[in-house]
């Protein structure tokens, strides 16, 4: 508790201070969630571990193989901004990237921080609000088109740590950007990142969230996206590691013509638990949303997908679809799929589809009949299954690297 109060004192009188106090209060009154709550019934909260672990020592991150040459880069190492490894010199005017802790210099951003995921929405959102101490503030002024992606790297190389990063991203009218957020760790730390993404009218955002934590790590993420008129968001979540992974993704289509494409791929192995919890709310007419989620589960891993489409009264002309598929590679793997529709307008087109099964024996036979080895054939089919999601990655170099990595992993996963 003392550490928290100190945090609040570090920013006297600021919006951040208010947010922290509010966060602390909400966390105290909400308490930790329990399995009795509908949205937490699948999550093994007993694996959470120590939420109060102190800020670790400065790390010495090894970034070989992670870097994207043309990217504007911020590197956070063990919860601190590492300016030496970061590189944001080539930014055009109209684009500002800074540490979230410097938000006081941007009154407009200060005004809206916490709007999309206010502390009272949940215990962990509250906890993040109370404790966040690193993360990025990205603002693109109206009409700014950013060449090259922004690459946010969150690296952690200690065993015990509890990290609370937070991003606030604002794309004003017609701004365009590609952002890659990359979480890498080497030990059983816990990370609870929160991000708020605001898209102004006609803005266009590609966001890739790459969760590549250590197999023993725990990662509970919260992302909210708000879309104004005719804006477009493409959001992709890749979950490759962690023993406990959960991402809550909240998307609100606020004004006519907005479009959101959300996709996710979760690879589970060992006894890992992975969960995508998606909520898309159509508040305005003539918006469209697409959801595409896949999970590949081996060993005794568990995959959960809960996706809800909400169509508010008056949101006529809504076009919303959702597809979730799980591939079970082992007798002990478990898939839970909960596609949900909540519709209060009549002129809508909403569909969802969901399947669970193992690799298609006929497809496997087809490949083997053409001289492809069993393991190779299985890996190919898995890559094809994952490929639907991967194809939306716009950064070619990164896509190739990821595909190569997945192929290697699928080869390993085929041994039952």
């Amino acid at each position, binding site marked *: 508790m003392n550490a928290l109060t100190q945090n609040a004192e570090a920013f006297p009188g600021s919006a951040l201070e208010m947010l922290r106090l509010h966060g602390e209060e909400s966390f105290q009154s909400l308490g930790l969630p329990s399995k009795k709550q509908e949205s937490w019934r699948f999550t093994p909260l007993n694996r959470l571990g120590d939420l109060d672990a102190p800020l670790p020592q400065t790390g010495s991150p090894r970034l070989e193989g992670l870097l994207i040459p043309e990217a504007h880069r911020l590197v956070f190492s063990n919860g601190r901004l590492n300016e030496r490894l970061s590189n944001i010199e080539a930014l055009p005017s109209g684009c500002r990237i800074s540490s979230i802790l410097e938000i006081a210099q941007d009154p407009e951003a200060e005004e809206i921080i916490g709007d999309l995921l206010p502390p009272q929405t949940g215990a962990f959102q509250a906890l993040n609000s109370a404790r966040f101490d690193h993360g990025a503030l990205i603002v693109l002024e109206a009409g700014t088109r950013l060449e090259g992606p922004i690459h946010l790297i969150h690296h952690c190389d200690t065993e015990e740590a509890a990290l609370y990063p937070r991003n606030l991203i604002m794309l004003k009218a017609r701004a365009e950007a590609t952002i890659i957020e990359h979480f890498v760790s080497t030990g059983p730390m816990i990370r609870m990142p929160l991000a708020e993404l605001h898209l102004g009218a006609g803005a266009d955002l590609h966001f890739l969230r790459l969760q590549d934590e250590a197999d023993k790590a725990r990662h509970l993420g919260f992302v909210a996206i708000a879309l104004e008129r005719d804006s477009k968001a493409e959001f992709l979540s890749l979950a490759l590691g962690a023993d406990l992974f959960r991402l809550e993704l909240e998307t609100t289509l606020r004004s006519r013509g907005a479009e959101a494409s959300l996709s996710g791929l979760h690879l589970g192995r060992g006894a890992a638990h992975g969960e995508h919890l998606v909520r898309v709310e159509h508040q305005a007419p003539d918006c469209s949303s697409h959801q595409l989620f896949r999970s590949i589960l081996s060993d005794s891993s568990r995959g959960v997908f809960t996706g809800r489409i909400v169509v508010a009264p008056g949101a006529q002309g809504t076009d919303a679809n959702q597809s979730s598929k799980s591939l079970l590679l082992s*007798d002990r793997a478990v898939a839970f799929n909960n596609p949900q*529709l909540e*519709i209060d307008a009549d002129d809508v087109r909403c569909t*969802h589809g969901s*399947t*669970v099964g193992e690799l298609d024996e006929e497809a496997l036979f087809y490949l083997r009949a053409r001289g492809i080895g069993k393991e190779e054939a299985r890996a190919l089919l898995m890559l094809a299954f994952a490929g639907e999601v991967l194809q939306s990655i716009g950064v070619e170099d990164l896509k190739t690297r990821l595909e190569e990595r997945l192929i290697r992993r699928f080869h390993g996963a085929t041994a039952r």
Partner: protein
Amino acid sequence: MNSTAILEEFANRDYEHGFVTDVEQDRFPPGLDESVIRALSAIKKEPEWLLEWRLAAYRRWQQQQEPEWAKVDYEPVDYQSISYYAAPKTNSLESLDEVDPEILKTYEKLGIPLDEQKILAGVAVDAVFDSVSVATTYKEKLGEAGIIFCSFSEAVQEHPELIRRFLGSVVPPGDNFFATLNSAVFSDGSFVYVPKGVRCPMELSTYFRINASNTGQFERTLIVADEGAYVSYLEGCTAPQRDENQLHAAVVELVALKGATIKYSTVQNWYPGDKETGAGGIYNFVTKRGLCEEKASISWTQVETGSAITWKYPSVVLKGDDSIGEFYSVALTSGRQQADTGSKMIHIGRNTRSTIISKGISAGRGQNTYRGQVKILPKAANARNFSQCDSMLIGSDCGAHTFPYIDVRNPTARMEHEATTSKIGEDQIFYCNQRGLSTEDAVSMIVNGFCKEVFRKLPMEFAVEAQKLLGVSLEGSVG
């Protein structure tokens, strides 16, 4: 006349079955405690074990919480203001002639005159009037085949060994809040036993009607199909129009032993409450579940057009290898109705198969929710499920919601779920108008087409009734 006007006219149509029958009643004062259960059990001359069973359920119920997870909104039920037993005064009936003519008239109004039915369709009817089964037709004919079809109370007296063996074997007494309450206070219901290898020669049917005000109806149905047997069972429900809400908390248990088949069809048309204010109407909180042994099959078909609140999830536990579960449903909510309904398929055995086809139609200010679960357990190798949940919205003030839960623990299982939401398009209506169909006919045709897959599963007479019902409930709400 434009389509909105037509719709309005239809929507304003009154509930046809909203009359009250004037019959002398034997009833308990409102309230529930152990003495009520003892008195109830005494009236029915029940054996000691059944009384204990009820009391155990009652004690359990006191510990339970009323579920709140369903997407329905209603005034809380005061369980102490309900009378837990109401029976027409005339008792112990030997033949149809002894049935109170008022009651028979009620059935006539409902369109199921008992004596006519004898000649007509060959449907045996066990009619439940409030809580007591008043007449059972066709008993003798069924007796020849060794089939037992009687009221539940009668079965307790005549076939205690069967009741004791199967009662609570599918829906245990503490299963959920409403089922537990039912276990404590169930008044009557139907019992069916079809012996080994017998194919029941006719469709069996119960017709429920809640007549008295301030009463709850807690019927309990138990159907057992022994090895290789076949039975098709129909259930229809109506209730008079009253301003206060009435509770209907039934339990239906189906047991399909090795190789047996049970088809259970429901047409539910309880009073839905006032169209504008939502006052009155039935709270339909029902637990229905079937258990399939090896190679057995159970099929639920339901057409739900009535009730203010529907809370109902007919389920099948696919315990035996190669067993089959099916669920076909049409649920319509108009006016202020709310329905939270769906199915649960629990795959335990190998090569088990299940199908869920659910059609939800929302009109007026109705709220229609599909909530279902498909669970494939680790031993259920090669299990197969196909689920399809379609919703149709009519008007801009209604809601359609879908909450399926899919839980797969075996990699050889194949599970598919699809859902769509749509409305009747103006282009579709226009197309029909162009070809000389009135808007009204066009709507009716489109809705019937939408529900066709389910209606096909209903027995003939029921299918016709269901189509009519749907027509009546819908008309006036299409725009």
